[in-house]
């Protein structure tokens, strides 16, 4: 039996880390992740996290020291966002092909320029093709639970991939909620033995050349490269099985069931659906409730796991509705739409029947996505049932909103 605390998402993540008993943590502060870096440091100072703290000179080294530690056998954690994540990018996209089970929070933040230190998901969305598993949380409790589950997912023998547990900057990073802290021993039992570098190691007792050069115009190089790439793709697909299994076990042990890949909210009997990701989902659910009271047959699909992309799970719900409105908190340049919308479009291609899909973008630069906004999303998507589909992305917090 654990205890109940009141904390924000950054502290919840830090508690998740403490319960997962990492060997090494490295953090470098950046808004809105800074307090997470502080919690981690304080927890180490207080002996709550019994890990070595690597207080390094920047995000680039943050991930680099963890890679070295992980290759030596350490369970590791870090957190970043925004420009810090951009600065980390060089070691970042090397972590998955090295198959290092590092867990990292992205406290999502919008991109600069124009200068902006507020929430948004531009950072996490921009790195979605680096090969990390990406999970987006809706509540502080989900943050804590998912950080712990992330280790079990990352260290699964069939996966061995790094995991990003993302929570929205400003909203979840600073928003305080009631959070249940599980028991340390129960978490130990759930996670079991750590499983880190059996496959790749920097160890004089097992000398190996880690990551030799491949390629060249001919020979075995490109084929070897493809073998590695396919291995990583396979691991991602395996995660689509493992993530639900880990969530199920978590629910059974701790009594809290989180939707692993996607969550369906009032989809039964829905004619159309809206798609959300991250903390906006709460307002979305309220709006769906209101709309249902007014007789609108609308439901909500929350995307929890964005990489690997839960194609089959999504197709099975999308096949039940006749229109879908997707709300993004970031943009995909060149598409004039959001990345989640793009991915939903791709998923829809797998359905037998094409249905109208609408793109909404809101919550950039820390802006609120309110219930009112969602009412507009629902109303607009509802009209699509009658063939009224906007020709363009609908911007929820655009200049016309501020008239």
């Amino acid at each position: 039996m654990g205890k109940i605390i009141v904390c924000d998402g950054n502290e919840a993540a830090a508690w998740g880390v403490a319960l997962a008993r990492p060997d090494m943590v490295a953090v470098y502060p950046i808004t809105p992740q800074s307090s997470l870096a502080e919690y981690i440091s304080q927890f180490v100072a207080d002996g709550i996290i019994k890990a070595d703290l690597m207080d390094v000179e920047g995000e680039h080294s943050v991930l680099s020291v963890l890679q070295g530690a992980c290759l030596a056998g350490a369970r590791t954690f870090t957190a970043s966002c925004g420009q810090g994540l951009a600065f980390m990018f060089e070691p970042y996209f090397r972590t998955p092909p090295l198959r290092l089970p590092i867990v990292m929070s992205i406290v999502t933040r919008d991109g600069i320029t124009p200068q902006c230190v507020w929430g948004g998901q531009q950072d996490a969305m921009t790195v979605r093709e680096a090969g990390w598993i990406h999970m987006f949380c809706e509540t502080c409790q989900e943050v804590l639970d998912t950080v712990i589950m992330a280790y079990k997912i990352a260290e699964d023998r069939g996966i061995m991939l790094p995991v990003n547990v993302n929570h929205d900057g400003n909203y979840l990073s600073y928003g305080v909620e009631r959070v249940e802290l599980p028991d340390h021993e129960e978490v130990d039992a759930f996670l079991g033995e750590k499983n880190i570098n059996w496959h790749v190691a920097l160890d004089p007792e097992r000398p190996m050349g880690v990551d030799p050069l491949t390629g060249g115009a001919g020979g075995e190089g490109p084929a070897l490269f493809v073998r590695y790439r396919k291995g990583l793709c396979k691991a991602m697909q395996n995660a689509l099985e493992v993530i639900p299994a880990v969530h199920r076990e978590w629910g059974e042990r701790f009594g809290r069931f989180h939707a692993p890949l996607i969550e369906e909210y009032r989809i039964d009997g829905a004619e159309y659906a809206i798609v959300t990701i991250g903390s906006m989902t709460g307002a979305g659910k309220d709006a769906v409730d209101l709309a249902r009271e007014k007789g609108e047959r609308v439901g909500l699909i929350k995307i929890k796991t964005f990489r690997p992309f839960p194609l089959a799970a999504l197709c099975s719900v999308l096949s039940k509705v006749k229109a879908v409105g997707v709300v993004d908190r970031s943009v995909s340049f060149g598409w004039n739409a959001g990345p989640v919308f793009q991915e939903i479009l791709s998923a829809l291609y797998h359905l037998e029947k094409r249905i109208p899909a609408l793109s909404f973008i809101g919550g950039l630069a820390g802006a609120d996505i309110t219930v009112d906004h969602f009412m507009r999303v629902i109303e607009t998507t509802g009209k699509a049932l009658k063939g009224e589909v906007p020709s363009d992305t609908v911007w929820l917090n655009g200049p016309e909103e501020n008239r």
Partner: protein
Amino acid sequence: MTGNGYRTIAFYPDRCDGCNLCVEACAEHHAGSKEAVHSRIRVCGDEEGRYTGIALCRQCSMPRCAMNCPAGALSKDPETGVVCWDEEKCVGCLLCTLTCPYGGIVFNAASGRVMKCDFCGGRPACVEACTRGALELKRGADLYNAWGDLEDLVVPGISACLGCNSELLLRHTLRRIGPNVVLATPPGCIAGVGAVGVNGKTAVKTPVFHPLLTNTASMLAGARRYYNRIGRDVTMLALGGDGGTADVGFQSLSGAAERGEQMIYICVDNEGYMNTGVQRSGTTPFGAWTSTTPVGSVLRGKTREAKPLPLLMVMHNCEYVATACTAFMEDYYEKLEKAIEASKKGMAYIHVFSPCPTGWRFPPGKLIEAGRKAVQTNIVPLWEFELKTGRIRFTYPVDDPLPVQEYLSLIGKFRHLDEEQIRLIQEQTERKIQILKAFTKEGRDGDETRVEGVGS
């Protein structure tokens, strides 16, 4: 003696406490008195008489004393290798005493002539007298044999250029450090010659990895910290090029040094990005041609001096910092020894001057000569810094350097230099020595730690 090399008396300053036994033994053997004035080996002191080391004859292979003696009184005995002094021929000019870099031939006030080590007929009294093992009789071949016995951890047949210094360095470094090591070779020549391997194969028998060009020190730090945590003593060794050390990798190196991460970081400085087409780096010297500091009608090579990386590392409070050159392999091995010890406490940094026949445009056979000339002109001073003393010590002091042109003229990348550029390089070289010398002194009030700027 053929094949074994001549003998010399090696001196280990660390073991010497200035007890004077050797001096007394030498005087006794040669003059029947223990008076220091009769000794051919000297205990040296600073102005205030504090002990600083021992001056003795090394029986040089190319003895400068003999080369300078106008009377032909000094000559190297081809049989024994001993540099002999012929009292009959000596005219007492004392020129020889001025040219010996070791202070090994000295004026004898009692006789008014010079005196020098005669090796006591093969069993030097000083060596026998020393109770601390600071003096040792050695053959030139001893060192080679000692290293030769160590395991070669690099496979034969790696793909280095002809005359590559990096290969020499890689093999010798791993020989000394041994297999209980994690080797990091960021993109650069060491990785390029195949250290980390291609298509699943590797060229070294130790764990090796290819970090990013930017994060060598960080990755090693992470691995070492974890090994410390689980109580395993594993040496972390970086062999990075100058680009990955002085340029993009400098941030992680600086951070690791600041945190005192335990590793040996060796910068293989071939003064440019050599395996990608000879582009300039932060350590490319002034005036050098590279493919990105070309020579044309407007530009004439690099316009700025090299980043003083070893000194920057001294300022980072590294446990140990040294410069080295493979033309002085014994010196390098001694420094590796110290680096291994230092890396148990914090960062040990060795900056190895690494001439590159391919990129610098000189014949591969001239590799060692290039290194030697660089040192003899003071372009590459050999020194070490130990945190515990807080001072820099020259390990091969060159008080009477050759003109820089003697080195520059060997190297194709300097072929275009005009007189003005050569003059500037001479000045830069002298200024850098002055700066280094300031670090060799003890901090005292009114001390001459003032740097004598060139041209001032």
